[in-house]
């Protein structure tokens, strides 16, 4: 489903250039559960951003469902993001002035879906993630775990094929963090591919496939097909 070929990403830092990704090759099948681990600065988040089309590689080709998406315009990329990718962030990134239900609804609103169609979809997801009772609370009235559930519900509302989670437990205590991981694993059980970036070896170890990054390169990949 996702195929990265010789992906490079360099950032200019003053006069010099920092190589965040060097010649990354990665193949991801639909429904896979992959963790990406590595020390900070190893390029995990950059990789995730490129897969999520939030960032463009400096070199290499990225195919999503067979389509080369590296050359798409901003507008086309936003459509791909909207339809195929769900994001979960460490800092939740909920819109503070909108209620939980409205936050979940937001991708549908951006996609131009009518209010009549939106309401049942949002209702079902809130129920699925056990936050129906908090539907009309604003983010600042929710606990960390509840916020991340809202964020995951929002990531799932467009029924993406893959969920990209960047340190989703990084801002949660251990128990709540576990709950969130269980939620993601449940989603994976339903056939959604999950890509989890973490530096917690315990959490990362739960994934069937584990990718380890060092210094912008893939150091080890338990699922890589023999070349």
């Amino acid at each position, binding site marked *: 489903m996702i195929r990265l070929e010789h992906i490079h990403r360099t950032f200019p830092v003053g006069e010099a250039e920092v190589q965040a990704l060097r010649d990354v090759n990665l193949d991801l099948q639909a429904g896979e559960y992959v963790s990406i681990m590595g020390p900070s600065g190893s390029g995990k*988040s*950059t990789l995730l*951003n490129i897969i*999520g089309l*939030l*960032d463009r590689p400096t070199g290499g080709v990225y195919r999503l469902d067979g389509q080369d998406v590296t050359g798409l315009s*901003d*507008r086309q990329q*936003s*459509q791909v*993001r*909207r*339809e195929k990718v769900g*994001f979960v*962030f460490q*800092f939740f*990134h909920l*819109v*503070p*002035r*909108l209620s939980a239900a409205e936050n979940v609804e*937001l*991708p549908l*609103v*951006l*996609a*131009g879906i*009518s209010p009549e169609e939106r309401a049942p979809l949002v209702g079902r997801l809130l129920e699925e993630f056990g936050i129906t009772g908090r539907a009309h609370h604003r983010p600042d009235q929710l606990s960390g775990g509840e916020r991340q559930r809202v964020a995951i519900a*929002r*990531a799932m509302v*467009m029924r993406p094929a893959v969920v990209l989670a960047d340190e989703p437990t990084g801002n949660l205590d251990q128990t709540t963090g576990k709950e969130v991981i269980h939620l993601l694993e449940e989603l994976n059980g339903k056939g959604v591919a999950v890509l989890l970036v973490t530096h917690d070896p315990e959490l990362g170890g739960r994934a069937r496939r584990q990718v380890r990054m060092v210094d912008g390169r893939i150091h080890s990949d338990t699922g890589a097909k023999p070349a």
Partner: protein
Amino acid sequence: MRSADVAAFAWRSLSGYRLRTLLMLAAMSMGVGSVVVLTSLGEGARRYVRNKFNSLGSNLIAVFPGRAETAGGVPGALVGRTPRDLTLDDAIALERIRAVRRVAPLTVGSAEVAWEDRSREVPVLGSTAELLEVRHLAVAQGRFLPPGDPRQPVSVCVIGWKVRQELFGTRSPLGEWVRIGDRRFRVIGVLERQGQSLGLDIDEIVVLPVASAQAVFNLPSLLRILVEVREREDVKAARLEVLRILRDRHEGEEDITVVTQDAVLATFDRILLALTLALGAIASISLAVAGILIMNVMLIAVSQRTTEIGLLKAIGASPEQIRLLFFAEAAVLSVLGALVGAALGELGSFAIRQVYPELPAFAPAWAVAAALATAVATGILFSLLPARRAARLQPALALARR
């Protein structure tokens, strides 16, 4: 994205940052409000002048001696003589014109009016019984100048309200003899209290029969002749007739100036309209300031909401949608501000009308419309830059901020 959703999102942003929104509304509405109030003042002045003129009757023609020249020196200077005076006979000659209802010759001077041991220097008007109607004067006590041959001096006078107060106090002046200059006149009437009327304080004057005034001032000429035409549509024809008659009487020379009230009014109208426009233009500077303020605040909003913009992009918002959302926010803000401002402005001009009932301070519709349009246009114009900046944010960088 549906437009109702865009509007709802913009509204949520505005109501989410209440203080910011209120401050911007205040700036915008003050801009619009000041345009409305200032133009209503200008328009009020215009209508005030118009009303004053209309209260004098709109069918008036004034005849002045001398020719208003825009080029060259003093009229007649080349042939070595001063312009011919207007005389009482000129005035009487004008009564022949069929379209003319009344003719009031006018001579004005300053003289001392004395009764017993009190005296006072006042403007003295010499005219005929016709002046009462022509200048829309009213008599409070006694009667006005008697009709009769204007060439005959009669020793009567009509005094203004204030003159009466100062010379006679509470006593009735009717039948008393006052001294004006070196002649004596019997007071036959007191004018109603009226105040200023086109530069002359009616309360302060004394009116004499024109021949008597000419004798007091020892001056055979007239300051002007006021001609009241029967029908408004005959004013133009009557003016030409006045010119013709007086030219004939002055040996074929057109040495007078005939001004219709409409022409004077039109001039005032133009001046005051220009004043209104200037006031509106000055006030619209504050509109531009409000626009720049909106831009400033929207730019701050963009940097404050960087992560939000990154998030919106992550969940599938296109650059166009981001631009639209910020744009809609500014648009809603400026439309609201403009409407509140227009309401405030109308309230302000209402207050002005309450305090100065004589001043019909109504903002002209074009000014209100222009203020609203300018407000909305500047608000939208100045939101383009922030909206574009928001749309261009790199989502990965935007989300990296926490």
